[in-house]
């Protein structure tokens, strides 16, 4: 028994330490100091993040495995976790006002605890090299979220969203497990590496069905069409901070985990099976997400559909199946975190101040709250991929990664994705239009948003502006991706 193996899980441990501190802080501190809980958790996360960047997590410079290959970490994994950490910090900062609000005080501590646990679950998903760990990670990342979605007790929507979310989540995990049982039946093991080896030579219908179920199960978390239908309702109903968290962190983590699963367990079937499955799913996801986004008036619902189609773009990095694609995907996730959080920051600020979330409420926002409008506009432009904002670079790189394959099918796929960017530009511009061009009698009155919200938005805006222009960020990501253990799968 070598329990020292737990030391390989530095990031997870750091996170659990944060969790524990928050837990204890919430338990034992007097009510007055508990108001500082958001700040405490944000600072702690910030420390973890900074440690990730500056101390390289005490040496995760090479791929490491633990628990006989059940758990793995490597620079690329550490990086993606770091990216999630950054998003987490912003989410924590942005949630402060809401968490300290009247109705939330009772549940403030639990919110931070649960959110940290879900992040832990995502870490596990990313690092898992065994399906049991993966499943636990997946559940860990979804179940507490259901509780968080239901946090807004004063709003009926919150409950409806929660029940929709948890029912679909459990259902999808049933389907996923079904697929997994087939995989097990074929391979006789749940270790990714063993599956990879055992499936060599197999190409049965059972495998295809299993893959379809596995993809469906993970696609649920990524909100790939047609497994996405919970997304909009849940996003709309959930508290804004939770929605933000769901839309960026959860999605980013799952995307990367998805890649890991597909590459490391089913890498052999890339060109025969799952490339085509993803091909269809990406087209569906981008298109349907866009088509629904057009008609939305509720900002959160709107961003839900936008995030669905963004997930499609993220998937391009997976289907590219090369180091460029992985780097582009990480970069995309990073940029997406900042852009989406900027948007949610604005939505949250406005919701907290006025309780309004409809796009029509935003009419003429620029006249009264120019900075909020500007932030929102930058977020929209970044999401739409307009230079010089970061979204442009991430889109460009992800397309570049996808096209490295140079197959005609990939060109068609990218073309469809590109055409969809026009549709997406349309609805992002609708928001800009509402804020800058339209006018309304009942414009949201000028207000000063909370300090925490401002900090969150400033960080997000800085990211939107600088992430793309400052090239070392992407350069280092690509260096990491090229050196990663995933690269060895791409060659096979």
């Amino acid at each position: 028994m070598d329990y020292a193996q737990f030391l390989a899980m530095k990031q997870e441990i750091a996170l659990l330490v944060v969790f524990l501190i928050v837990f204890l802080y919430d338990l034992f501190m007097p009510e007055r100091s508990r108001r500082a809980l958001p700040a405490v958790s944000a600072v702690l996360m910030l420390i973890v993040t900074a440690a990730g960047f500056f101390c390289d997590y005490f040496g995760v410079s090479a791929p490491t495995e633990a628990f006989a290959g059940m758990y793995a970490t490597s620079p690329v994994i550490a990086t993606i976790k770091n990216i999630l950490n950054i998003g987490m910090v912003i989410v924590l900062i942005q949630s402060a006002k809401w968490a300290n609000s009247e109705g939330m005080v009772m549940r403030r501590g639990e919110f931070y605890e649960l959110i940290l646990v879900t992040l832990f679950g995502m870490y596990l998903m990313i690092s898992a090299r065994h399906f049991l760990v993966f499943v636990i990670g997946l559940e860990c990342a979804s179940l507490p979220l259901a509780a968080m979605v239901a946090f807004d007790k004063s709003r009926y929507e919150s409950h409806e969203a929660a029940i929709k979310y948890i029912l679909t989540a459990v259902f999808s995990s049933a389907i996923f497990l079904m697929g997994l049982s087939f995989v097990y039946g074929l391979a006789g093991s749940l270790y990714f590496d063993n599956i990879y080896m055992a499936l060599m030579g197999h190409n049965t219908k059972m495998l295809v069905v299993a893959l379809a179920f596995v993809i469906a199960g993970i696609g649920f978390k990524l909100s790939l069409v047609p497994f996405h239908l919970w997304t909009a309702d849940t996003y709309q109903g959930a508290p804004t901070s939770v929605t933000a968290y769901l839309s960026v962190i959860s999605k980013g983590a799952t995307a990367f985990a998805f890649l890991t699963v597909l590459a490391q367990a089913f890498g052999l079937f890339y060109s025969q099976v799952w490339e085509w499955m993803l091909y269809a799913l990406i087209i569906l996801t981008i298109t349907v997400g866009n088509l629904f986004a057009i008609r939305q008036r509720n900002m959160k619902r709107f961003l839900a559909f936008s995030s669905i189609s963004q997930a499609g773009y993220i998937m391009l990095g997976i289907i590219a199946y090369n180091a460029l694609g992985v780097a582009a995907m990480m970069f995309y996730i990073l940029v997406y975190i900042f852009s989406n959080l900027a948007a949610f920051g604005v939505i949250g600020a406005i919701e907290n101040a006025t309780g309004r979330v409809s796009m029509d409420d935003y009419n003429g926002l620029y006249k009264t709250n120019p900075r909020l409008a500007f932030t929102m506009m930058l977020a929209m432009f970044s999401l739409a991929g307009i230079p010089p904002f970061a979204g442009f670079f991430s889109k460009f790189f992800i397309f570049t990664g996808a096209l490295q394959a140079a197959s005609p099918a990939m060109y068609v796929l990218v073309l469809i994705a590109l055409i969809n960017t026009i549709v997406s530009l349309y609805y992002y511009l609708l928001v800009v239009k509402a804020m800058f061009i339209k006018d309304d009698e009942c414009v949201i009155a000028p207000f000063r948003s909370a300090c925490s919200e401002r900090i969150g938005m400033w960080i997000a805006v800085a990211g939107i502006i600088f992430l793309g222009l400052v090239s070392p960020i992407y350069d280092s990501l690509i260096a990491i991706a090229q050196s990663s253990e995933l690269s060895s799968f791409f060659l096979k």
Partner: protein
Amino acid sequence: MEITALYYLVPSLIMFCCGLYGFLTRRNMIAMLISLELMLNGVDLNFVIFNRFLFPGQMEGMIFTLFGIALAAAETALAIAIIINIFRWVNNIDIRELNQMKF
């Protein structure tokens, strides 16, 4: 006559499909959860069967089932908590009436 793995798989699969059917058709949310349990149970059975018949030397399937049961329990508990919450709001647990958010 020999009872092969295939025979064992039949009830498990049917259980899964029944659960699916129930989940898709029942109005009562708790009934839906019950159906979900059926599905999860079917899956568990699958694991066990595969383990026992095809890979008897190890116990991954069994362990997985063990964890699966725990997961099912956790899921159910949380789901029921939320359902009760809903019930407090609308005094009803008919899933079809939970459609305020749509389109």
